């Protein structure tokens, strides 16, 4: 804090200027109006090396004071470089350097809204957007207009599109989180007409007019409602619905786009002709957004991947996805799936995770891990710990069985999960959840082999894999943390040892000094004694010489150090 206001003084002393409160960060408390600090001299040494008449300390101080005062005219508004550079004479690169220096140390724009705040930027831009201008002799007036440039970016979409790999186990590249975990998410607004439950994973539309949807359970149980029979209902998969939500690009269009890119490669005109409903720019930006878009370009240009493989297999994958859904729905029978949203609460560390596309199984682990890693590096350790705790809590809440198994400390480590047991709660609960999934009545012993794993519906495998990946990451993190801890201990021990050695040396030093002092002391004592002995000797001689008269006993006493005087006395007599 630079200065404090004094409200009472405002009333009593009007002549004194009002003091304003400006906030600067603590690490900038070295700043003072009247002087130039070492830090400034070091960071902006061009001003202080006398290399040019245009760069002197006085000039630097003027720049600095002007910029800070300008900012403080309105501290709530972000000061931009363009505003001050028009008012200062000097090389713009150098001015920019000073500006950045002050901004970095929080002496300006501390607490002003950031540059990414689009509202603030738009405001600032409004202020700079100027005015009328006389263009030319023939009198064209160019008047400022609000920005009318069309946005080129396309909104993010959650499409489901397919691409099949050889082992048939790939997830559709554009499968979003909600597609994988859609049985866990509640379908908004679709309530069963019969039992009042939310329709989780699919609902049956009655073909007859005026009838509501009923959920899967009711359909199976035969509760169709009055006067309706099995045939009247049409199954409506949640996947399909989701695929069409709010997407500017429909599936068909995306499909066309992909096909035409594979066929024509880089030739955007032909691509646009194929995808009639979208312009060239739209096509290009859409393709770039698709996670594999650029790969496709590369493959169509360079490699010999036949386009037929992909296009013909896209359709079967979609149908197989649906059939798998059917199996899963059919198999679950009466089991309640009351799990709340996220198994992905494990990923609740950040909302963006839910939107990221999962490209393929082999990639899913990587991309998810990357996301987790990125987010965990962005936030501090406390936040990550809190998030992990919340994840565990959410997992426990999801299903009461989890808690029981958790407490029971039963180890259902499967071989493919493979991660060693640690004290990490998150990992354990994840594995427990896996085992809990495995315990579903649909398929009983799918614990071990990969062939059996193939029989598990796709989303469950995804979840198992994700849990595995997260568990492995957690285990890895723990081992890293242990290692760090050990290293810290080692270093601390080294430090302590060094300190001890230092103390030891000092003590040694002092001991040596003491020894020397003692020796000197004894030496001095000897000297003293010898001097005293000399004196006595002299006095002795004096007495022996027989001095009868002592003029002044005091003065003689004081002159005992000078035998010559005494002798003079005797001679004088």
């Amino acid at each position, binding site marked *: 804090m630079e200065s404090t206001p004094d409200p009472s003084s405002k009333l009593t002393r009007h002549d004194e200027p009002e003091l304003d409160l400006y906030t600067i960060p603590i690490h900038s408390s070295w700043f003072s109006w009247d002087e130039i600090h070492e830090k400034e001299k070091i960071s902006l040494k061009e001003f202080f090396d006398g*290399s*040019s*008449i*245009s760069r*002197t300390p*006085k*000039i630097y101080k*003027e*720049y600095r004071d*002007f910029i800070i005062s300008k900012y403080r005219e309105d501290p709530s508004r972000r000061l*931009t*470089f*363009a*505003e001050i*550079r*028009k*008012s*200062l*004479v*000097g*090389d*713009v*690169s*150098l001015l*920019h350097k000073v500006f950045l220096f002050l901004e970095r140390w929080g002496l300006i724009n501390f607490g002003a809204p950031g*540059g990414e705040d689009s509202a603030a*930027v*738009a405001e*600032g*831009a409004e202020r*700079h*957007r*100027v*005015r009328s*201008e006389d*263009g*030319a002799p023939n009198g*064209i007036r*160019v008047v*400022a*207009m*609000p*920005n*009318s*440039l069309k946005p080129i970016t396309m909104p993010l979409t959650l499409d489901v599109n397919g691409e099949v790999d050889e082992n048939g186990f790939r997830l559709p590249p554009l499968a979003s989180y909600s597609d994988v975990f859609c049985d866990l998410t509640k379908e908004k607004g679709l309530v069963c007409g019969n039992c009042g439950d939310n329709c989780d994973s699919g609902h049956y539309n009655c073909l007859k007019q005026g009838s509501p949807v009923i959920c899967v359970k009711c359909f199976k149980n035969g509760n169709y409602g009055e006067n309706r029979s099995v045939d009247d209902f049409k199954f409506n998969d949640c996947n399909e619905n989701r695929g069409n939500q709010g997407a500017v690009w429909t599936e068909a269009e995306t499909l066309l786009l992909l096909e035409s890119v594979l066929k024509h490669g880089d030739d955007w*005109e032909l691509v646009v002709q194929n995808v009639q409903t979208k312009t060239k720019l739209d096509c290009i930006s859409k393709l770039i957004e698709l996670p594999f878009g650029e790969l496709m370009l590369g493959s169509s240009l360079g490699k010999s991947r036949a386009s037929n493989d992909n296009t013909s297999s896209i359709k079967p994958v979609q149908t197989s996805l649906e059939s798998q859904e059917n199996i899963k729905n059919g198999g679950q029978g009466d089991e309640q799936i009351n799990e709340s949203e996220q198994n992905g609460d494990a990923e609740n560390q950040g909302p963006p995770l839910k939107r990221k596309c999962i490209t393929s199984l082999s990639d899913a682990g990587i991309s998810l891990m990357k996301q987790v890693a990125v987010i965990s590096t962005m936030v501090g350790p406390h936040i990550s710990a809190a998030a992990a705790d919340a994840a565990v809590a959410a997992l426990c809440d999801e299903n009461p069985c989890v808690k029981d198994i958790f407490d029971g400390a039963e180890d259902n480590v499967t071989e493919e999960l493979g991660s060693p047991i640690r004290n990490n709660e998150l990992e354990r609960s994840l594995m427990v959840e896996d085992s809990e999934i495995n315990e579903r009545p649909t398929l009983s012993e799918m614990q071990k082999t990969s062939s059996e794993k193939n029989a598990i519906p796709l989303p469950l495998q995804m979840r198992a894999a994700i849990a595995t990946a997260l568990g492995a990451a957690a285990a890895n993190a723990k081992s890293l943390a242990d290692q760090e801890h050990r290293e810290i201990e080692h270093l601390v021990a080294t430090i302590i040892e060094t300190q001890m050695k230092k103390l030891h040396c000092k003590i040694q030093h002092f001991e040596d000094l003491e020894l020397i002092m003692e020796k000197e002391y004894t030496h001095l004592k000897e000297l003293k004694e010898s001097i005293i002995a000399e004196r006595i000797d002299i006095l002795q001689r004096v007495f022996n010489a027989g001095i009868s008269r002592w003029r002044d006993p005091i003065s003689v006493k004081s002159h005992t150090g000078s035998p010559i005087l005494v002798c003079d006395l005797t001679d004088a007599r």
Partner: protein
Amino acid sequence: MKPLPSTSSKNPVKFRMPTADNLVPIRLDIEIDGHRFKDAFTWNPSDPDSEVVVFAKRTVKDLKLPPAFITQIAQSIQSQLAEFRSFEGQDMQTGEKIVPIKLDLRVNHTLIKDQFLWDLNNLESDPEEFARTFCKDLGVEDPEVGPAIAVAIREQLYEIAIQSVTSARETRISKKGRRGAEHIPASKASGTALDLMKLFGNKSSIIRKRREWDVYEPIVDILSNEEVDVLEAREDRNARRID
């Protein structure tokens, strides 16, 4: 002969762009069969010359221009590069030089007008960074504006650098002639530079007078389609008149 203060800080430096990256500004303006191709960008002179043809081919393909453009583009780039390289071996004066740079360009729908000072002595200056800050501070959304600004700055710096080479050559020649000629070349060399004593001396302040703020303030205008058309037509007419 006592050296003047302005010349004493001069030690000849080999010609180069006075910026951190030694990039050459290239401007293309080619017309064939009614197709007009205008572009401006920076080129790294240390790239191999084979890159020029590759670049020309790719540009023609991306923009669907008639193939006759390939050779024209490549030739134009190469001649500008050759010109740059012809200056390369020579010496450049690097006295105190703070020069005014003016921006007056139109990129798609954005019109930019600006004026500021640039220190030629600062061999680490970065026009691209200046352009980035400019666009960020003034909220310019068109992504083509930034590079255009950088190229415009580079062109002016290039011009001034060439001038300093020629003046260096002249000082050498005239030095051989007359001793007293040192006075004259010194002032000629700093013809475009500002009088630093006047600006930065003890008596004056480095804060500009308010009435001059408008002159040095950046102006960004967004034009409507009609205005763009009119301006384009005028530019074409001017260009043809020069031809």
